[in-house]
């Protein structure tokens, strides 16, 4: 076949494609057919395990929704996309989800920067986005939109609850080892805010580059100050490395290690020795089932669906965010962004951890915060790694006020 022939065929093909591709993709979102939830999460990269939990939680919620008849018979499907933990990649995937796959809602993400990127793309196109990753910034008026919901806790709540627990118990002279990005900075602010009434004294706040592999150079100075509490305001691998190295320097002998967010996945990756005695906050821990009925119900469903596995914080977030949106859609009787947004605002729910609701001004999920301590003894099974030492009840007064965030209400 000659080259010209091939070219002509290609041209015909693309003309045909052009004819079938509507130019008005953006204007009308499908009100028929299945409900589509776009789910951009970091399937590959360092947080793949967390992402997998998020997906499993979301799928469980969708299974329940479909089994109970959907939205007047309309079933829901989950469109999982890999963000590779990159905001640029996430923005592209979100564009694809909205433009090509006609997603009705977007849920997901697992980093401060990725959720802000996804949020920006979704809000411009008036699509509801529910974020399941910690951030204070997304609550603020600059990034927020009527279509932005924040299911995860935010640093102010998390650090606040942990701080209110540890300050009276372990002392008022504190030091920070902080990952130098929004998450770390916000956590520091959260601790200091909570510490003000207790009169805590910040000895030093050392900022380390995110993703640093060696923390030794920051440790001698902290040691020389002999703080009562050392806060590790970092996440994932940074947390594991820095806690481990600080332990090696012998810092643990006189100083209590605290981190705002202590997750099951990090604890399992780091090992019991490294984390022994470390205190932190959590959205969810499966042992909540001992006291909270909805947690028991959620765990049972999860175990049944995933061969006995217990849900992590990320499974719980994935589950409750998706379930909240679908419940709201059912309440609204529609998938229209404005109607569902209103319904979400009116929603009071208890899916995994006791009662929750979205605050009206910034759509932050007001929820209880768990304070947990890592243990190396008396473990019932491999997942029994924390003791829940305190639970702070849902309380708007622990959040930054709407005015502070720049909202009118």
């Amino acid at each position: 076949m000659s080259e010209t022939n091939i070219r002509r065929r290609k041209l015909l093909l693309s003309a045909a494609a052009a004819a079938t591709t509507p130019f008005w993709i953006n204007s009308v979102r499908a009100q028929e057919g299945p409900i589509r939830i776009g789910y951009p999460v970091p399937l590959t990269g360092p947080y793949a395990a967390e992402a997998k939990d998020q997906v499993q939680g979301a799928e469980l919620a969708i299974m329940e929704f479909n089994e109970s008849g959907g939205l007047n018979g309309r079933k829901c499907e989950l469109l999982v996309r890999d963000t590779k933990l990159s905001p640029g990649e996430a923005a592209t995937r979100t564009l694809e989800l909205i433009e090509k796959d006609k997603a009705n809602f977007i849920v997901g993400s697992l980093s401060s920067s990725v959720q802000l990127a996804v949020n920006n793309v979704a809000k411009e196109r008036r699509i509801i986005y529910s974020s399941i990753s910690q951030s204070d910034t997304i609550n603020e008026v600059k990034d927020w939109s009527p279509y932005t919901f924040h299911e995860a806790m935010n640093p102010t709540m998390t650090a606040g609850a942990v701080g209110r627990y540890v300050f009276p118990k372990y002392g008022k002279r504190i030091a920070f080892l902080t990952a130098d990005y929004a998450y770390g900075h916000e956590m520091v602010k959260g601790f200091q805010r909570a510490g003000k009434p207790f009169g805590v004294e910040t000895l030093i706040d050392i900022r380390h580059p995110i993703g640093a592999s060696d923390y030794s150079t920051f440790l001698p100075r902290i040691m020389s100050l002999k703080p009562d509490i050392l806060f590790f305001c970092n996440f994932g691998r940074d947390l594991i490395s820095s806690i481990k190295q600080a332990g090696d320097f012998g810092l643990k002998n006189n100083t209590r290690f605290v981190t705002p967010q202590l997750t099951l996945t990090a604890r399992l990756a780091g090992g019991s020795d490294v984390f022994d005695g470390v205190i932190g906050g959590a959205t969810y821990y499966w042992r909540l089932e001992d006291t909270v009925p909805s947690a028991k119900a959620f765990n049972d469903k999860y175990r049944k669906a995933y061969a006995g596995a217990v849900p992590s914080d990320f499974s719980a977030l994935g589950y409750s965010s998706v379930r909240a949106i679908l419940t709201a859609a059912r309440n609204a009787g529609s998938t229209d962004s404005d109607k569902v947004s209103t319904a979400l605002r009116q929603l009071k729910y208890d899916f995994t951890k006791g009662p929750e609701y979205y605050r009206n001004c910034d759509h932050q999920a007001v929820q209880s915060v768990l304070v947990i301590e890592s243990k190396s003894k008396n473990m019932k099974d491999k997942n029994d790694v924390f003791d829940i030492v305190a639970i702070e009840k849902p309380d708007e007064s622990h959040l930054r006020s709407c005015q502070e965030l720049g909202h009118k209400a």
Partner: protein
Amino acid sequence: MEGAPSRTPYRLIATQVSRHRVAAVIAFLVVLPWLTPSHALAANILIFGLYAVGFNLLFGYTGLLSFGHAAFLGSGSYATGVVMVHYGWPWWLAIPAGITLAALIGLCMGYLVIRSRGIYFAMVTLALGQCVYFAFYKAEAITGGENGLRGVNVETIDLLGWKLDFQDPITKYFVMLVFVAAALWFVSRLLASPFGAVLESVRENEKRAAACGYDVARTKLLAFVISAAICGLAGALRALHLSIVPIDSLHYLTSGQVVMMSLLGGMGTFFGPFVGAATILWVEDVATILTKSWQLVVGVIFIIFVLFFPRGIWGSFLHWLGRR
């Protein structure tokens, strides 16, 4: 080569395509959105293709392997985003701002690296690129730091009273294509110009070019700055496309990506960068759905090309056409 008799239809096509190379590339880009699985992917190919064109000007035509070109893509994006978000500039004025900053950073970086050659050049550009990364990372108040810059939003474009919906992916694509086409025209003219000849001579034999009387350092510096400016334009368009500027657009892996694209497509060819960008982004897009090990797939393809097809896809194709 010029003036070579075209005996077969294949050669005839090759000659025709290379004679009207800008038109040929634009024709491809016009139909691209209907060939790709999604419009967003087409827009990414458009942007990264231009990024690779800028890079290729330095690598393919001047022979300098830079591992720091993300600095230009990223600073182009940031400058465009920052003037829009913080200073309320209109989008059409923000694009030149992106180009300008990228060119300026190119000038500073070029001044430092132009004395080093070969592999050293690659390493030093990499390290300086990381410096730029840190500078933007630290300037959190302006750039948003790790969170990236959000809010580079354009809803409609007003063209003398004719309103275009910039949220419509096809409209957005074609608006960006206008800029890419202009850049391609410029690069094509540049390559055909006397200066283009000097670039080639520097690539071919630096010592000889100097002996002929060309100031090799200044020639390289100018090439470096122009290359940076084109990558800056790609960055500016990327900011508009994504409506955000992610910090990893400055990361060295983004520099590595453009190296892969250029080599895979065919360095020193006009169309190669787009072929390379399309291939890598497409493979990533498809491989991501099929397997979690997309990096493995991309890496293996890349190694095969380095070993067996150093001319790249388009370069090998042209070579094959030429031999028919």
